[in-house]
């Protein structure tokens, strides 16, 4: 039970991080038709900038400043490069962001080096947020923060801590989502953005500067990625490979959820986050399953890689398998509306 709860929470927090990224990606995509291949690069920039700014100002200021800086860089890129290729069509737009992902990776290695940085969370977020305690009788208890040592060391007791950084990740994702939602639906600029999404010409005729709205949306999407980067970089590793590890997963999320669907991206993020987290923790293989069912295998078959392979080993490919299955059985994605 406590394994289930902690894994579920870990999975949800990872899924919410994925959604912080895929929401920005979806926003930019549904607005401008641009698939930002460099989105994960902005996530990485957020982590590195959060680290550098944090060393001067402390973490909490960096949490605010780093996303703003990343957003400004994103807006600058949109203004100088992306807008120029907009008239060539969607493939050159995708290509230029692809080129940017190379450049950002090299620049990050140039400025911060090739090794992982020691990006520690602030004092408050170190250690567990709460601990689930199962005592010898099997009853579950909950202690905020770290559980007292004597409780955990008691015979038969099991303590499962939930890291505070993970909790903070969930909190910041939820706060961010609610504020983006309020911004889009309750404010004037949000209404202009929504209108520019479907009827750019009309909005332009009404006197709004649509290219500037696009620049703002692109910058905002990058800022969201930057925020996710600060939180993710502090929780996981801040290293040059972090963009590649999360990059292809968020593309899977966007396709699985349905291109351009925020709700779809939300569902897909959570599913992939939870499934992957559980899979990593499960040490069962086809062989052990058959053994439990009472099937005895020949020694040759027992040595077979496919039979020996545990679910945790398969975990890295699960998102991609999910992608393939979705494409076969529901090509428009979970909650997508457009076909093709």
């Amino acid at each position: 039970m406590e394994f289930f709860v902690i894994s579920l929470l870990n999975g949800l927090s990872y899924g919410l991080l994925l959604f912080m990224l895929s929401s920005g990606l979806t926003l930019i995509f549904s607005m401008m038709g641009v698939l930002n291949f460099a989105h994960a690069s902005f996530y990485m920039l957020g982590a590195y900038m959060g680290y550098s700014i944090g060393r001067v100002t402390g973490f909490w200021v960096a949490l605010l400043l780093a996303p703003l800086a990343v957003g400004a860089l994103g807006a600058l890129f949109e203004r100088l490069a992306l807008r120029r290729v907009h008239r060539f069509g969607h493939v050159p737009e995708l290509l230029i962001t692809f080129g940017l992902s190379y450049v950002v990776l090299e620049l990050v290695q140039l400025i911060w080096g090739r090794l992982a940085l020691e990006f520690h969370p602030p004092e408050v977020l170190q250690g567990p947020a709460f601990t689930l305690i199962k005592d010898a009788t099997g009853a579950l208890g909950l202690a905020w923060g770290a559980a007292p040592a004597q409780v955990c060391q008691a015979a038969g007791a099991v303590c499962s801590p939930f890291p505070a950084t993970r909790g903070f990740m969930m909190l910041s994702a939820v706060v961010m989502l609610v504020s983006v939602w309020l911004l889009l639906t309750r404010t004037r600029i949000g209404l202009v953005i929504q209108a520019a999404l479907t009827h750019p010409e009309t909005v332009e005729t009404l006197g709004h500067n649509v290219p500037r709205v696009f620049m703002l949306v692109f910058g905002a999407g990058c800022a969201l990625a930057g925020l996710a980067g600060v939180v993710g970089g502090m929780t996981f590793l801040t290293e040059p490979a972090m963009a590649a590890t999360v990059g292809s997963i968020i593309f899977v999320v966007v396709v699985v959820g349905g291109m351009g669907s925020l709700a779809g991206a939300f569902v897909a993020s959570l599913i992939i986050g939870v499934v992957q987290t559980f899979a990593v923790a499960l040490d069962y293989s086809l062989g052990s399953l058959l053994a439990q069912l009472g099937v005895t295998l020949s020694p040759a078959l027992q040595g077979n890689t496919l039979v020996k392979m545990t679910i945790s080993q398969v975990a890295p490919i699960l998102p991609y398998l999910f992608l393939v299955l979705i494409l076969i059985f529901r090509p428009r994605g979970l909650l997508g509306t457009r076909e093709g």
Partner: protein
Amino acid sequence: MLVSSRSSASRARWITWSGFALLLVVAPLLLSSGLSITILSQIGIAIVVCLSYNMLLGQGGMLSFGHAVYSGLGSYMAIHALNAAAAGALPIPVSLVPLVGGLAGLLFAVLLGYVTTKKSGTTFAMITLGVGELVFAMSLMVPEFFGGEAGVAGNRVVGEPFLGISFGPPIQVYYLIALYTFLSVAGMYAFTRTPLGRMLNAVRDNPERVEFVGYNAQHVRYLAFIVAGFFAGIAGGLGALNFEIVTAEVVGAGRSGAYLLFTFLGGATFFFGPIIGAVLMVLAFVLFSELTKAWLLYLGLIFMFMVMYAPGGIASLIMMNVRVARFGRLRGLIPHYVVLALTASVALAGASALIEMIYQVQLEGSDAALRFLGVTLQPAQALHWLLAGAVLLVGGALFEWARRRFARQWGAVQEDIELRVRQMEASA
């Protein structure tokens, strides 16, 4: 009139193809050092794979981030076939091993392409990325087939030499690769002239109309994907023979990205563009990467620059100037090109001096001196940074001045050509 233009076109085709064949035969005689033979072999392989990639990108409008899956799996099947042949389990000659790779590429394209080509455009791009990641992750999970970290090694000298050909010496492998390259290039060119190749262009340009005419756009994409997979697999098989080892990176995202980058740089809109891209790819990987540690940065910047200013790649730049030359106006532009090249190289020298110094500081510390273009740079001295920056600024300003003058001249030439074309059409 029509007959004579047709016969002159067919003569031009004969000259082009025999020139290409001659070049493939003569190249290793002119550049006979060990390094240049290796480079030539790799160029031959790269030409096949870049052209097969361009079947998707240039001719079908399909932007794939996972083309290395098909060339890479072709490599793996080829090396396993080679090892089976060496063990006597499979009676095939070494010269047919690349075909095994090609068939493997075809089979995997049949299997994976069915899912991939369900979509077009941006979604297609993301699915290829996902499939690429899937295969790469699998390659680390199934060591029996992929050989784990160490990869699968082989030995291409199998059986008795036939007519003195054992494929041991690199030059013999080069000629095998050259033969496959010629046949593949010819095959892929022929493909562009088939009804399927034409329909593929139509699917790229206007899928709705294709559907209205009665074709299934998805089916056309799928068939083209399979053909591209076949040629990619041949390139993979040739690579397996050439290197005699296949590691998991051949199916990786880096390899796929390189195919995309260089095919685009060469020029996706012309059939011969990817050939230029392939030559550049091998030179960049073998020579340029030795020259500077920052080469990926330069590559990314050049790529972004090309996407912004010359989306047709190098091939389109060449063809634009060929058009100008045909109207006899190239002579007036040559001084402009010389000035542009000079100012650009000044600016680039300044920029790359800065980049190299930053790399030096990052990798070696600020005390180490750096040899750059025959000059010793000391990253510890502020003066050297200032000098490099000044060179960059002066070069950049001069380049911008030259570019504006050139743009005016170029515009005038183009207007003149348009005018003459219209006059000719009117008089015809």
